[in-house]
Structure formats: C-alpha cells, structure tokens
C-alpha cells in the first residue's frame, strides 16, 4: 500500500513536471525564436546616418586605409570586399547613375494586380499583364490625358478608316535573356494566342492578320474598323508581347508554370518564395529610361490591417487603396505620407428599365433628383470624392468627350415629390408608403456586392444613405447583400442597383457601348436598356476613326441617356495611398494606370536616402 502511494506521488510529480515542461518549452521557444527583426539594409550608407552622401565616400576611404572598422553597409556593390569599387559605386549612386534601394510593396493574397502575376502560372494567365507585370510590356500604354505613350512601339499610325494600324517598334529592346526583340515576337504573340484559343485572344478578335515589312514594323489589319484598338491593347486586360524563342516550344500554355518570366520590361525577375515574396531587379539593358530603384520586392500580406501595421513598422514602403478612415488616422504619423490619387473610380445609381417601378421613366427622373451626392461624398468617401452630374463619362478623365449640355439632375426633393405626384405615385391608403399607379406599395430592393463598388462595402453604404433619404419620400428600401457573381443576376430582378467602375471604363465614348441592347454576352446589359436608335449610334461610333466625329456621336448618345435615365451619376472618388517618405520619394509625381504600385510608379520613385 505504501509503495503504491509513493508511486502515485511520483506520478503526480511527473505530471506536474510534464506540465512545467510544456510551458518551459513554449517559453523557451518564444525566447529562442524572437530573433531581432531585420531592418531595411541601406548598402552604401557606410557611416550609418541614413543618408548617402559624400561623407559615406570619405568613410569608405577611411575603412580602406584602415582608419575605421569595416561594416556590412560599406560594401556598396555587395561583392564581399570593401575597396575602391565601393567608392565608385557610392559616387554613382549620388549622381543617380545607378539604380538604388529596395522597395517593398505588399500585395493581398487575392490580388490580381501588380506583382501577383508571378504567383500565378504564366504571363498569359492574368488579366492586367502589361502594366501590372512590370517585367513585360505591350506596344503602347495609356496616359491619364487620354493619349498613349509608346512602349515597345516608338510611334504608330492608323489609316483613315481605322482598319490598318501600323506600329513602328523600338530598335534597341532586348529580352531579359539577351535575345533581341523584333516584330517576329509581335506576330508570334498574336498567332500564339489565337492558335491556342486562349481567352486573352478575344482582345485581338477583330485583328485579321499582321504583316511585318521589316524587323521593326508591325502592321495590324483589322476585320472591321477599330478606332479604339490602342485602348484594348493597353489595359484591362491588354496584350503583353511574349518572346517567340521561348514560347514557341510551349504547347500547353493553360497548364504551364513559368519559372523565369522573360519579358522586355524595366524589371526582371530574380527569385521568389511561393505565396510570400517575389523579387525583381532593375533591368540594366532596358530600352527606355532606366528605373531608379535597384530592387522591387512584393510581399504577400493578406489583410489590409496587417499591411498598415507593416507600413508603420517599416517593413513595407507603401500601402495602396486604404480607406478614408485609415487615411485620416495615418495623417501626421512620422515618416508616413498619405495622398489621394484623384478620380480613380466612378459611381452611379443604375435603374433596371424592365422592373417596376423603374420601368416608368417619370419615376427614374424623379429619383434622379433624390440622390444627395454631397452627403454621399462626405459620409461614404470621407470627402475624398466629388459629385458628378454628366452622364456616365467622367469629366476628369474623358475631358471634352463629355457633353456638358445634357440635362442635369440636381438634388431636389421637392422636384422629386412633384414628379412622383404627376406620375401618379401617392400615398392613397395613408400608411406612409407610396402607392404606384397600380395601387401597390413602392418597395425597392437594392442588391449590393457587385462590381468595384463592393470594395470595402462602399455600395452598401451608398444604398444605406439612399434608404434613409427615400424613406422620407415614402419609398421602402431593402438592402440585399450578395456575392459579386450573384449580383449580375440580381440587377435584372430589381429596379435599382449601385455601380462602381474604374476610371478606365469612363473615359471614352466607346465605353458608352455598355448601354447597347446586347452589350453583355449578346445578352441584355445590367440596365436592360434597349434602344434601337442608341444601338445604331454605337455601331456608328465603332466604325468611325475621326476623333471629332466620334465625339459628336458620343454627345448624341449622352443626350439619349440623359433623357432616358438608365443611370444617374453620383461621384468620382479618389484612391488613398500611404507611403514611407523616409524610404522613397516621387510617388505623387505620376498618375499610374492601376492604383496598386504599377510600372509607371516604380519607374518614377527613387530612394530618399540619396542627398
């Protein structure tokens, strides 16, 4: 008995020590693993003052002469030795002759934007390839002013009927592996996409064939007139030119995982750690202006909150598309600058023409007066948005394509009430809810969760404001949250919906084709808008090459839209970006095509350490 007791005691002790053991292991693992966090390395900053200037040159010289002890950062060219080569390197950095610094950019796990292409198979697999890839280029790239900059094409011209597009290519471009870029690659890209029947080839569906009179000219022959061909080539998705010498041997692009991503772009892939980091470096042989940053690292940080923390702690150098609330909270933080990228997205209230009560034109016109744009700009966008009154095209990006003379629908509830009354909407049974001409209560469900408006629940907030305001008018609004893809079905079942689209969908009369009767998959558009006269204008617009004529046709289309009111513009909103001003400067100097640090931005920024 006694022995048994002792044994029990021993076991109890063992149990206790096991518990202590587990705790001890946990604690020691914590301590052991809490290695110091790696700070950003500034090779060239030999004296460690955070700035690269002539003092560092002096310091490295002192190290060489043995007057100062060596350190890692003095080894500017990172060859493992500290010698006169490092002195030259620092001088080149100061003179801005060599790219310098490593910029770290966070990307979300679900990102389709810049950098994420390297995580997803191959370049033909992503929708925004040329600009967002930073390693590949297209022929041209779109500018904010509505024009185009040459990329792999130096210059280009179009025939009067917009059926023949001639691109003169740059002569000194090389693929990252050293092979020269020629017009063969352009033909190959077109033929490859089409012969493999890749979905991307739909961008080129109107191209009949390409001819190359010489190595640096590519002539695109269209099946039909195509005045906005450069627009399709340059973005969403756009066409990136791929190297013939590598891709000709790839038979199955759908299931091909590219390890090298050989392009012609200003940055080339160095290596990556799947789902975590992608590292690119400046392409020394780039045919255009050389980038000023030496390395670009994309880091996967899934949640926006974590991205902001990483920005604060200095792990990343920029965070894109932050909410107004976070933008305001970051304001005044040391070494962090916040700036708005103006007018990146346009928002509208859409009406479905087939559903009651928005099938009544007078109702649509009445409700167009019941949208408090100022309130939406202030509450939903924290002031980082401006009301728009013109139809669909955004004045800040479509410029003179916008017809300023179309009828405007100001916020005027008295007018709404008058129009509703004259359209026989009135509260006949006195329950506080309007009855329509058919005697039924006017109740509206607004589906939210679709298009770009769904990002950070913006459409939900806009709908909430409408709900609140329209209640006063006697209209019951219910908000229905759906999935993005479900939303596309819901718009056909409900009278009102919220649309948000990037500015690139609001900048050319061609974008007005979205109201064509068979605009979507040969199916009805979201608005179920169907106007034969309008469809005729779309055809006309698409076969006209002259800018002025297209503008005139666009004006006619806007007039029809303004009168039929399938859509009411709300505002154009900004995208907020926060960056570390102690690391890189120049972010605010350029307007990117996409608002996650795209190629245009990365070509513009330079290290803040160089003085």
């Amino acid at each position, binding site marked *: 008995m006694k022995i048994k*007791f002792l044994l*029990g005691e021993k076991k109890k002790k063992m149990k206790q020590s096991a*518990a202590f053991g*587990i705790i001890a292991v946990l604690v020691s*693992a*914590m301590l052991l*693993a*809490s*290695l110091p*966090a*790696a700070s950003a390395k500034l090779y060239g900053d030999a004296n460690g003052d955070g700035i690269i200037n002539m003092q560092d040159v002096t310091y490295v010289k002192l190290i060489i002469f043995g007057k100062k002890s060596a350190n890692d950062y003095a080894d500017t060219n990172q060859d493992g030795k500290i010698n006169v080569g490092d002195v030259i390197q620092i001088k080149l950095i100061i003179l801005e002759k060599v790219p310098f610094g490593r910029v*770290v950019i966070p990307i979300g*796990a*679900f990102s389709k934007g810049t950098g994420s292409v390297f995580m*997803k*198979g*191959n370049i033909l*697999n*992503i*929708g925004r390839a040329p600009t967002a890839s930073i390693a590949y280029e297209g022929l041209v790239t779109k500018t904010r002013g509505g024009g185009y900059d040459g990329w792999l094409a130096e210059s280009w011209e179009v025939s009067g009927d917009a059926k023949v597009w001639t691109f003169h290519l740059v002569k000194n471009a090389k693929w990252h592996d050293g092979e020269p870029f020629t017009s063969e690659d352009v033909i190959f890209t077109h033929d490859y996409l089409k012969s493999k*029947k*890749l*979905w991307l080839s*739909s*961008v080129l*569906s109107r191209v009949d064939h390409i001819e190359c009179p010489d190595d640096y000219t590519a002539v695109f022959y269209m099946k039909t007139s195509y005045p906005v061909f450069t627009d399709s080539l340059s973005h*969403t*998705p756009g066409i990136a030119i791929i190297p013939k010498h590598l891709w000709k041997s790839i038979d199955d692009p*759908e*299931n*091909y*995982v590219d390890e090298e991503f050989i392009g012609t772009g200003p940055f080339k892939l*160095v290596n990556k*750690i799947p*789902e*975590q980091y992608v590292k690119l470096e400046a392409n020394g042989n780039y045919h255009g202006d050389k980038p000023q940053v030496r390395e670009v*690292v994309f880091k*996967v*940080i*899934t*949640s926006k*909150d*974590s991205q902001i*923390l*990483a920005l604060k*702690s200095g*792990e990343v150098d920029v965070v894109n598309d932050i909410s107004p609330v976070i933008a305001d909270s970051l304001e005044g933080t040391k070494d962090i600058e916040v700036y708005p990228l103006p007018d990146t997205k346009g928002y509208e209230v859409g009406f479905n023409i087939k559903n009651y009560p928005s099938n009544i034109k007078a109702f649509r016109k009445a409700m167009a007066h019941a949208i408090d744009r100022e309130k939406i700009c202030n509450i939903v966008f924290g002031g980082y948005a401006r009301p728009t009154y013109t139809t669909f095209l955004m004045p800040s990006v479509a410029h003179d394509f916008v017809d300023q003379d179309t009828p405007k629908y100001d916020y005027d509830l008295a007018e709404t009430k008058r129009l509703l009354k004259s359209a026989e909407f009135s509260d006949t049974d006195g329950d506080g809810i309007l009855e329509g001409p058919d005697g039924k209560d006017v109740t509206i469900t607004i589906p939210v969760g679709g*298009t770009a408006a769904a990002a950070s629940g913006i459409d939900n907030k806009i709908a909430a404001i409408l709900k609140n305001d329209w209640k006063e008018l006697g209209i019951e609004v219910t908000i229905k949250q759906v*999935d*993005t*893809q*479900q939303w596309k*079905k819901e718009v056909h079942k409900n009278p009102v919906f919220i649309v948000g689209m990037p500015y690139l*969908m609001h900048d050319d009369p061609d974008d007005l*084709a*979205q109201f064509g009767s068979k*605009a*979507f*998959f*040969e199916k009805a558009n979201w608005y179920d808008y169907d106007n034969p006269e309008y469809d005729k204008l779309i055809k006309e617009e698409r076969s006209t090459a002259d800018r002025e004529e297209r503008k005139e046709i666009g004006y006619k289309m806007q007039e029809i839209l303004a009168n039929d009111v399938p859509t009411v513009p709300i505002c154009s909103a900004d995208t907020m970006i926060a960056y570390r001003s102690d690391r890189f400067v120049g972010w605010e100097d350029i307007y990117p095509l996409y608002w996650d640090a795209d190629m245009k931005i990365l070509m513009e920024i330079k290290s803040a350490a160089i003085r």
Partner: protein
Amino acid sequence: MYAEYIIKRFFYSFLAFFISISITFSILHLMPGDYIHYLAPYLAEVNPEASELFRHQFGLDKPIIEQYFIYIYNVFHGNWGYSFQYRVPVLKIISEKLYWTLIILLPSTFLSIVIGIFMGAHFGWRSGTKKDLSVLNVMIFIRAIPSYWWAIMLILVFGFYFNLFPLGGFISISALELGINYLDVLHHAILPIFTLTLCSIPGIYYLMRNSMLLTVGEDYIITARAKGLEERNVLRKHALKNAMLPMITMITLECAHMITGSIFIETIFSWPGLGLLTFNAILARDLFLLQGIFLICTLIIIIANFIADLSYLYIDPRIKVGESA
C-alpha cells in the same frame, strides 16, 4: 463478425463519399459566374468571346451530365484537373498548402487537445470549487471573443509593440537571399500556433468537463469510492476512462478539421494555408481546385469517422457489433 462490420462500415463510407462528391459537383456547377468574370470582369461583360473560349477550353460547354460522368471517371483515375489560377495540378497545390496548414495546425491541435482534456478532466472532477468557476469564466471569455480579434491583439502587442515576433507571413525577407531557414519559419509560426491553441482549448475543455461531470454522478464512481479507493485512482481508472469516450469522436473530427485550415487566422497572419486557398478558390470560381479541396475534405472526414467507428470497437466493449441493427 468484425469483418462483416468493417465491410459494412466501408460500404457506407464509400456510399457517403459518392453521394457527397455528387452533391459537391452539382452545387459548384450551380454557382453563378465563372473564372473569367473574376479575372477580367469588364472584358467578360463586353466581349462574349473571352468567356466562350474559356468554357470551351475546359470543357465547360459540354452538357452537365456529360461533365458529371467525365468528372467521376477522372476522380477515380486520379486526374483531378488543373487550377485555373495557378496552372498546376490541383493535388499538387493542395498538398503544398496542406504542408503549411499542418505546420501551424498540427501543434495547435495537439496542444489544445492535451491541454483541453487535462483542464476539463481536472476541473470537471473538482466542479463547483472557486478555481473551477474562475477557469470556467475565463474559458467563456476566451470563447466569446472571435479568433481574429485575438490574432490582431497578439500581433499588435507581441509583434508591433514588443517587436518579439514578425507581423505575419511565414519567412523573413532575407530568405530571398539566404534561402528558407526553419528556425525563422518556427519564429513566424509561434503566434499563429498560440492563437489557434488559445481559441480551440475552450471547446475541448467544455466537452471534457461536461463529460466528467456526468461521470462523477455515476453509480460506479460511488461504488469505487465506497471500496475505499483513493481519489486519484477513482479519477484515473474509473472516471477518466469513461469520460473520455465522447472525446474520441471529438478528437478524430478535430484532426480531420485540421486540413480545412483556419481562414481567419491564415488571413490575418498571411499564412498560405488551405483555409485561405479555399476562400480564394471560391472567390475566383476556380472550379477544379474547389472540387479537389472538397473532395479531399470529404475523404478525410469520412476516413476519420471510419477510424472513430473502428476504434470504438476496442475502446468501448459495450458496443456490440451488428446487434444494434
């Protein structure tokens, strides 16, 4: 007798598997939208050709019945297709992600089961004491707060303010030059493991404590005490063994759930696991990948249940094979 039971169980498991993959197939094909609409929404809206080309490429334009039989045929031939997004075989990507998921979920599941059972048994035995009540309240507190809040707070305190741990990810940026260092991975894994453990202890603790409370009132415990056995032995030999029975299913299911990952924790810690993959695949309508993920999950859960069923045979002699039916 046992063989018959096992064969019966096996047959039912197979039936369950077959039915669930058929349901999965139908539900996934009923989902509105497709990958092209996710990838290039505006192109897909205005250019019907993009979507047509895409559907043709992956055989999605065939009649649904035909697709179903092709799918069933392929599943049993080990051909699970390629992910639309990653362009790699579905099984390869799942196994890669499973690896990362297990790095955080294996330790946390093990720890939470051990700690949860230990605490549940301990305080269930001594229910009603001050210690028991305070622990119970703490557990309710832990459980009541969602896991992502704990995750954010732990990152904020230990990662941001004390700078003891990285803010997220599984490896430091230096790995780009130096390669993957496993000590570094461990360093990154500690906070997620800790959060997961913290958040799953209460569930196991509750069940164990309740099970123990029920056992304590049983006649055989009183008998054991009346025999003059020591409390320790009554607990260990009589109470614990019986109280553990309901835990078997719980443990096997916990283990099965490991592979589905933890979406919140993975999102907040930027940990590239299966939970995140599933969520992403749903958003992107990555059809074949989704089918693969659900197939794996179904398979694991069915196997886990099968194992639980079999283990009861040995653990609980009261279960008489074949007589219940």
